[in-house]
């Protein structure tokens, strides 16, 4: 049995027991549980891994950033295993952050549950074979079997299992079909039949590296793992990959019989969406559908109700009433009525002064109650205590911030992620990336950047987080800068659209061309100025399919939850900071500081500077302040240009600082002030 040419994977694990050789305590080793058997889910992107993960872990799931990265790893427990989900990857290597994280977790795994898309075996089995070459204990789930059958793809599961040397369980995760056997399937996990010639090389390496898995990484030229063990990385990655690719192709010949592919609707849609002629109308229809859903339905109807009614009218009034009962407050109540033209107008207004809170003056409080009882009110609370202003005032952390987060941002983010999940699960997203790739190349980006750019029209904070999916730091930098400078978020878009509607078609055209020019200029200049090269587009296009409601809803929820969890603290920090600036008078100083520039350079009324500074709190506040001023159409263009170019709200600044680091973040921030006023002034010079 010691003849190295006939070693089976079991012998290798026998030679050196798994626990005895770990000489490096990696961050992954510290990150992962030590007590239970570590079950790690591995698979390509979009194979339905998360359904398995949820099935195996139940409700109590902990999502945390992998040490030193922004990659999120979900972890849960069941009585037998500590279960880890890994990012979807095409192979185990270190070409990007996701792969590095997946690699480190896989290296620590006791059992790997490899989820494979039956419709997509050509792509997925490369990863499976690589995992097998790593010598880990593996159980495979052959998922989406129902769809494979629909498409006439027949897979000989037994033959596949024999050839791989690991158990294979056919499943349809979305219907939980096959899940009854999952519990019995996982313990059968075993090392599979790895490449024989690789095996010999690996055996030689074992003495200095310790495990077959790490040995394989070293052979495949992984510098980090090689350095961990003080050996030279191998130079044969390509040979190994080519051979593995060939093994996949040979395996598929033996295992898969596909009946002649019909011209299915899915294939037809797939072609149309990337056709040079029909791709554009297709894209236009998709974007219009998203606009109708998010821009009209969610942003107007839903948010109109949640923000204006639930948030402003009920929630904030309730909170502020509680606070004003115990602290000195001046309450101004305005009765709102409708003019003949349908606009809101103030019919009557009364001001009530409670130096010691409404509790201390029940008579006046009752009078106010009676006045408020009929019709619609707009109520303004002016607290005497600074603390009350900071926490419950106009920009208070527990008044405005909650309304903003729960009643405005949450529905919007849900709407956007729902659209995104549908696009993703339908297979259109990679085609969209392909279709726009060339147009984004000039900006130093590849087609994948379309995702954060579109999301930016919803919420720049959300989009800034999504830049993580881009291939290189350089692209993340360019995309973040474009987002922060030139993309107005939905809150702002609404106000911009309203202002432009009053300013007329000429103003709209000028404004739009200015912003588009700047959008292109930022990308082009950064692409020329930044060192290095951006990664080219290289994507597999999965078949177009009808998205499954459950998958889509689950994805939407997971993404929304993750975003809200991550962004919420920053919105509070931002509100707190602005409230403190307000209470200490720094906000006014800032406004005063800006007003000479506003009047002299931008040629706008002095009050416009308030609108600019308010833009810090919420971008729409900034633009909304311009409503009240009577600006000429060209002044509107100048003001909107200036406001759009500003860095968005303070929450997006915070998230940017976190994602991009303090130095780069502040550079972009300061740059945006300079740009906003610089270009705003130039526009003013030309137009006014």
């Amino acid at each position, binding site marked *: 049995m010691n003849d190295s040419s006939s070693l089976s994977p079991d012998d290798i694990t026998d030679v050196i027991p798994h626990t005895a050789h770990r000489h490096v305590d990696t961050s992954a080793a510290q990150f992962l549980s030590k007590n239970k058997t570590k079950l790690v889910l591995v698979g390509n992107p979009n194979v339905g891994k998360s359904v398995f993960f949820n099935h195996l872990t139940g409700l109590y799931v902990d999502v945390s950033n992998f040490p030193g990265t922004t990659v999120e790893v979900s972890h849960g427990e069941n009585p037998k295993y500590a279960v880890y989900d890994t990012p979807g990857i095409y192979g185990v290597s270190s070409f990007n952050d996701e792969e590095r994280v997946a690699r480190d977790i896989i290296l620590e795994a006791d059992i790997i549950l490899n989820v494979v898309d039956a419709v997509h075996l050509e792509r997925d089995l490369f990863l499976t074979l690589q995992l097998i070459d790593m010598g880990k204990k593996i159980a495979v789930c052959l998922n989406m079997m129902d769809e494979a059958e629909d498409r006439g793809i027949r897979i000989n599961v037994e033959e596949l299992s024999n050839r791989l040397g690991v158990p294979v369980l056919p499943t349809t995760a979305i219907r939980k079909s096959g899940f009854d056997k999952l519990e019995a399937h996982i313990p059968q996990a075993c090392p599979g039949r790895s490449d024989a010639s690789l095996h010999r090389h690996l055996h030689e390496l074992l003495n200095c590296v310790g495990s077959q898995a790490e040995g394989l990484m070293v052979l495949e030229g992984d510098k980090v793992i090689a350095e961990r063990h003080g050996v030279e990385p191998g130079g044969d990655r390509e040979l190994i*990959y080519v051979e593995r690719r060939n093994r996949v192709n040979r395996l598929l010949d033996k295992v898969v019989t596909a009946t002649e592919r019909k011209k299915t609707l899915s294939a037809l849609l797939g072609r149309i969406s990337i056709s040079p002629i029909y791709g554009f109308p297709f894209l236009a229809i998709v974007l219009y559908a998203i606009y109708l859903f998010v821009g009209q339905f969610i942003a107007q109807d839903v948010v109109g109700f949640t923000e204006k009614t639930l948030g402003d009218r009920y929630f904030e009034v309730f909170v502020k009433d509680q606070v004003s009962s115990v602290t000195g407050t001046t309450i101004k109540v305005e009765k709102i009525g409708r003019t003949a033209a349908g606009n809101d107008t103030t019919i009557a207004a009364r001001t009530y002064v409670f130096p010691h809170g409404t509790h201390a003056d029940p008579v006046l409080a009752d009078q106010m109650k009676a006045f408020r009882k009929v019709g619609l009110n707009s109520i303004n609370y002016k607290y005497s205590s600074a603390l009350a202003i900071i926490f419950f005032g106009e920009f208070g952390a527990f008044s405005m911030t909650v309304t903003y987060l729960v009643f405005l941002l949450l529905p919007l983010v849900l709407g956007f992620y729902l659209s995104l999940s549908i696009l993703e699960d339908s297979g259109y997203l990679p085609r969209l990336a392909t279709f726009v*790739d*060339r147009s984004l190349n000039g900006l130093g980006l590849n087609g994948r950047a379309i995702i954060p750019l579109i999301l930016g029209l919803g919420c720049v904070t959300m989009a800034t987080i999504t830049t993580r999916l881009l291939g290189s730091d350089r692209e993340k930098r360019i995309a973040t800068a474009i987002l922060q400078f030139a993309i107005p978020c939905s809150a702002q878009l609404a106000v911009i659209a309203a202002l432009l509607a009053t300013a007329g078609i000429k103003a709209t055209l000028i404004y739009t061309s200015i912003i588009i020019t700047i959008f292109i200029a930022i990308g082009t200049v950064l692409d020329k100025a930044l060192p290095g090269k951006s990664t080219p587009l290289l994507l*597999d*296009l999965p078949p177009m399919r009808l998205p499954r409601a459950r998958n889509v809803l689950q994805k939407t929820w997971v993404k929304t939850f993750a975003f809200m969890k991550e962004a919420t603290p920053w919105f509070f920090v931002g509100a707190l900071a602005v409230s403190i600036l307000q209470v200490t008078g720094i906000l006014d100083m800032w406004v005063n500081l800006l007003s000479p520039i506003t009047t002299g350079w931008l040629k706008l009324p002095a009050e416009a500077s308030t609108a600019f500074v308010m833009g810090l709190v919420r971008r729409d506040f900034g633009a909304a302040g311009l409503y009240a001023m009577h600006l000429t159409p060209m002044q509107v263009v100048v003001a909107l240009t200036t406001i759009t170019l500003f860095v968005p709200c303070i929450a997006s600044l915070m998230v940017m600082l976190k994602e991009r680091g303090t130095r780069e973040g502040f550079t972009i921030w300061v740059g945006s002030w300079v740009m906003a006023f610089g270009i705003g002034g130039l526009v003013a010079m030309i137009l006014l």
Partner: protein
Amino acid sequence: MPTDITQLVDVRRGTRGTILSLPEDSELRSQCIRLGICVGASVLCIERLPGGTIILEASRQEIALGRNLAKQIGVAIG
């Protein structure tokens, strides 16, 4: 007999070919190989977008390649 090398970016829609060369960059090469674009693999160009984004069928999958990548890949037509 010498084979004519065409840059993948210049390949027309509907053309079949065999991959002759891959990009210089080792990571890019490896990522191509992983997706079945290896030297000797036979591929079919199912679409070419204006500007040179190429969509290939290789190893039974559809793969999109940006123009800058497609420039670095050589194919023999036919």
